[in-house]
């Protein structure tokens, strides 16, 4: 395992700037998740670290070694692709053993067998070692792909949305397993996803990418509670943060220059109005089983928040809405700290 240092990396494809001026450090044994929408440059960043793309500018160091110009084979990285990139017509065992059979690291056969079996147990596929890789289910295939990355003990694992082609249940299971494996091995992982739950649950630090720039990086808690920009705030939280113009609701003291108020569930107090004054009206109570989504119409805006399953509010109820230390953003979408509680 080793740390990875990316300095001032640019990468353009024809006239699209995929990544610009990227600085990123991944510490030894750290699980860093890059989160962002499609086209933000997440996958390109990953491919740059892997050596599948070469940067136009900047440097990449892995474990203190400058690998900027090296090809993937000499970088000692492992890559898990979004698609199940297994070698068809090879068995699970042969797929897992594939990286160990390269001339650069030729191992004796009994050692290969031991390593493969250990990894197969780790990713829970050891009962299917002799199966053809094409005869596996999606979840099993991706387990094998992850196993193939693990078997080499590389300096860093690069994972490009490895769970996105799986169904929700499997995704949840593998998410936990992946985190367990990473903790067990103390592995350094750079993980790309557009799924905020994956990011929040697995990451030691989350990096938010937008249009090729790293907008913010921090622990999941930091990024969630102290988003640097409107964009970051909008990426995290379920239901998504409500964005309202300043002044629509009595917010006490919006800081100077604030244009937009961002309010998640924890920033809102919604009660049935008692005295005839109403800020909004309940539009719909969405029952999700373990929780409810409360949809409120406020002037021509719509708010969505979480609420208790035993909420007394019903469709059509007039409500008063109060903000509790919400997030403020300026005209550029940058966060303005401060603001007075009401």
């Amino acid at each position, binding site marked *: 395992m080793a740390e990875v240092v990316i300095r001032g990396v640019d990468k353009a494809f024809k006239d699209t700037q995929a990544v610009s001026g990227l600085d990123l450090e991944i510490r030894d044994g750290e699980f860093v998740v890059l989160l962002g929408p499609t086209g933000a440059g997440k996958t390109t960043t990953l491919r740059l670290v*892997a*050596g*599948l793309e070469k940067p136009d500018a900047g440097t990449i160091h892995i474990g203190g070694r400058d690998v900027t110009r090296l*090809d*993937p*084979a000499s970088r000692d*990285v*492992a*890559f898990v*692709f979004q*698609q199940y*990139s297994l*070698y*068809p*017509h*090879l068995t699970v065992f042969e797929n897992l053993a*594939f*990286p160990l059979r*390269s*001339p*650069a*690291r030729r191992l004796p056969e009994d050692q290969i067998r031991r390593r493969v079996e250990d990894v197969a147990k780790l990713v829970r596929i050891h009962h299917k070692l002799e199966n*053809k890789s*094409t005869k596996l289910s999606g979840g099993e295939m991706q387990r094998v792909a992850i196993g*193939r990355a693990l078997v*080499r003990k590389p300096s860093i694992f690069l994972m490009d949305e490895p769970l996105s082609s799986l169904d929700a249940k499997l995704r949840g299971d593998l998410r936990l397993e992946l985190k367990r494996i990473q903790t067990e091995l103390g592995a350094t992982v750079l993980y790309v996803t557009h799924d905020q739950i994956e990011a929040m649950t697995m990451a030691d630090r989350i990096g938010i990418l937008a249009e090729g720039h790293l907008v913010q990086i921090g622990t999941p808690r930091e990024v969630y509670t102290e988003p640097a920009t409107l964009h970051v705030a909008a990426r995290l939280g379920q239901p998504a943060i409500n964005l309202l113009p300043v002044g629509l609701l009595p917010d006490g003291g919006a800081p100077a220059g604030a244009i937009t108020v961002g309010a998640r569930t924890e920033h809102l107090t919604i009660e049935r109005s008692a005295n005839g004054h109403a800020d909004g009206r309940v539009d719909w109570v969405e029952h999700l089983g373990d929780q409810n989504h409360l949809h409120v119409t406020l002037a021509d805006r719509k708010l969505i928040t979480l609420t208790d399953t035993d909420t007394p509010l019903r469709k059509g109820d007039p409500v008063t809405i109060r903000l509790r230390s919400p997030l403020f953003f300026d005209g550029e979408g940058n966060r303005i700290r401060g603001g007075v509680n009401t």
Partner: protein
Amino acid sequence: MTDANATLLERAAETAVRATPAPVATRVRALSDRAVAWLFIAPTMVLLLAINIFPLIWAIQLSFTNYRANRPNETVKNVGLQNYERILTDSDTWLAMQATAHFVFWTIVLQTLIGFSLAYLIDRKFRGHAFWTTVILVPMMLSPAVVGNFWRFLYEPQIGLFTYIVSFFSGIPPSEIAMLSSVKLAPWAIIIVDTWMWTPYVMLICLAGLRSIPDYIYEAAEVDRASPWRQFWSITLPMALPFIMLAVLFRGIENFKMFDMVNLLTGGGPGSTTEVASITLKREAFEKWRTGFSSAFAIILFVAVFGLANIYVKVLNKVKSR
């Protein structure tokens, strides 16, 4: 075979019934849906029966007789399996089979090797690869008759371009390079022409196979430190194999019944060195007019190709399902 066809047709009829919207049936009030469906497929069925099934059955029947098409008034005698017996024990037919096997084997080997290599090069996506693909495909687009005639000129010992070039590079005098009249060279002459003409076809199928291999598999192998050599043997070749095998099947069936080009180039000669099965068949049927005998020969060829192709397709399916 007729049974299989009948059930196929029935199934087609049923599908048509299901697909026919109700208004059509109401407009043709006198007919039931099923009748309308049969009406629609009737022309195809009639044609199929008239030009495929009926001649086949008739040929089978003729193969047990001594019928001669140039003497229609002679009494036709049933000779049982005599025709078959004679063919299978006749050394001439075995020579023809040998010539065919030689031709089929070498054309497939050469076309697969060259075709796959070309496809592999074209798949590198170098500058102008689309242009070169088109250029390579040109021979395939020509008519076999044109190709046969052109190559006769190219093989011409005195004025032929092929002869000139070979003689220029090898130093052998052109008079000794009689591609079409030498017993040794003639079998290779037809192999060269067929390879020239049909390698592009094999290349095209192989190219489709190579293009079907996703990039990320190669990228995964690259990260896994597989050498280009290993990538070729453990990814490229196994994944393109079903396509290669398909090309071999197509070329094999085609060349087993090769007639036009060989007939134009050598006419089976010199002697009978290039007399592939279909040329023997033509000689027996339309020069010697032994219709019964040649019918039996045709049936034997048909069964052989059909049987081999069936076995091959089974193997192909096994390879595909790996």
